């Protein structure tokens, strides 16, 4: 299932090999392998409980694998690895923001945690990047879901990560907010950031993807460069889930 690193001459931006994770008796991940280059966007589809979020949390370094490894730009991710954490940004259906702080205060706080050279300028740039300058001084608790998600993206991109991990980023967004987010993610892919997006919704992930994986019961049932249309993937998804279900 693994795509060899540098198979087409390009260096692997993100390499995942034999990744496995167990929670008590539950095997959440059973040996996942994939390799992505800069600018690749992998959409991982799977039903609830397939282990998609576990995969992202392992790549982000929020969980320790029972087996396997994650490499970013050739460097293996170790425990407490601050350099790794600087290379990764995570956008989740949780915003990771403080409702009691303003948009600017949230970003300034994270800019200081990342020890950025000019935290205020970085926060301003990040707010401008998601068109939220006008609401910079408003508490996040007063924002709509779409605005919170845009601010969460600004937070994830604040430190200019090479690898962006997205966990159900369209969850709870209305059509307009989802379109804005899609445009933003297209722009990020054009900037050659490597992205891994996990979702159980085929429609929302496929447009963005250069690679597609279908994950069922902790394994990739299929993985490869995107080919074919939505209908084809629907059929493959249905087949994979019925086989393992």
């Amino acid at each position, binding site marked *: 299932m693994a795509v060899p690193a540098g198979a087409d001459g390009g260096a692997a931006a993100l390499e995942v090999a034999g990744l496995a994770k167990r929670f008590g008796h539950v095997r959440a991940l059973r040996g996942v392998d994939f390799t992505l280059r800069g600018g690749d966007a992998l959409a991982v589809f799977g039903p609830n409980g397939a282990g998609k979020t576990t995969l992202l949390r392992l790549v*982000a*370094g*929020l*969980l*320790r694998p029972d087996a396997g490894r994650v490499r970013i730009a050739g460097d293996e991710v170790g*425990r*407490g690895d*601050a*350099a790794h*954490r*600087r290379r*990764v940004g*995570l956008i*989740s259906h*949780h*915003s*990771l*923001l*403080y*409702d*009691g*702080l303003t948009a600017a*205060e949230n970003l300034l*706080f*994270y800019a*200081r*945690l*990342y*020890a950025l050279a000019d935290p205020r300028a970085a926060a301003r740039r990040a707010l401008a990047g998601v068109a939220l300058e006008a609401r910079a001084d408003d508490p996040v608790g007063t924002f709509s879901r779409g605005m919170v998600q845009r601010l969460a993206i600004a*937070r994830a991109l604040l430190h200019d990560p090479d690898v962006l991990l997205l966990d159900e980023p369209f969850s709870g967004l209305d059509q307009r907010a989802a379109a804005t987010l899609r445009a933003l993610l297209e722009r990020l892919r054009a900037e050659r950031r490597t992205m891994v997006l996990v979702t159980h919704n085929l429609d929302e992930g496929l447009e963005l993807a250069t690679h597609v994986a279908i994950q069922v019961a902790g394994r990739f049932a299929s993985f490869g460069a995107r080919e074919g249309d939505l209908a084809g993937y629907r059929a493959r998804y249905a087949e994979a889930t019925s086989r393992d279900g």
Partner: protein
Amino acid sequence: MADLLAQAWAIAAKDLLLEFRSRTAFLSALVFTALVLAIFNFARDPTAVATIDLAPSILWITFSFAGVLALNRAFSLEKENRAIDGLLLSPASRTALYLGKTAANLVFVGAVEAIALPLFALFFNVPLLGVLAPLVLVIALATIGFVTVGTLMSSMAVNTRFGEMMLLVLVLPFLVTPVSAAASMSAKIFAGRPFAEWAPWLKLLTAYDITFFVICTLVFEATVEE
């Protein structure tokens, strides 16, 4: 080192700003303190036990439980929107996280104590002016001791069911030493006993603070990592 201190400061400032805006935990701790002092004041029989004998115990019971109330908020505010993931994803070291949380808790508990102490003097008619300096020293050392341990326990309790109750269960055994030492020293200070009589307790409390600060700083990473 500069990065570590800057990150710790950022975390402490953020916690204090959030608490300043909501004041929820601060007001809860203050109301609790006033209530406990009022109950003890009206429940005691001044002809049976002299106020000066009872006062140190009441002071430290009040401070301990108000402190635990305050410690509960340290990590519960990180549960909102899973902000703890944002902290753990950042390159900030876990030591900076612990130091930041501990510093914010110290300011927070210290502020509660600063208001509770005059209330205590008012309810129990204890003259503080002559003993303020040694009493503040004892309060500061005991507060450092239980906040140091309490911050660590708060990080462990937050992800358990009934976390607030669990924090009490986890932290109370560790409070025995600093609170006993502080209560004994306070009694001697209120009674006007010479420094030499309470110096051994002071040494014990200082040793406790240093020992647990080192231990808690070292083991904190294991409590927040998976």
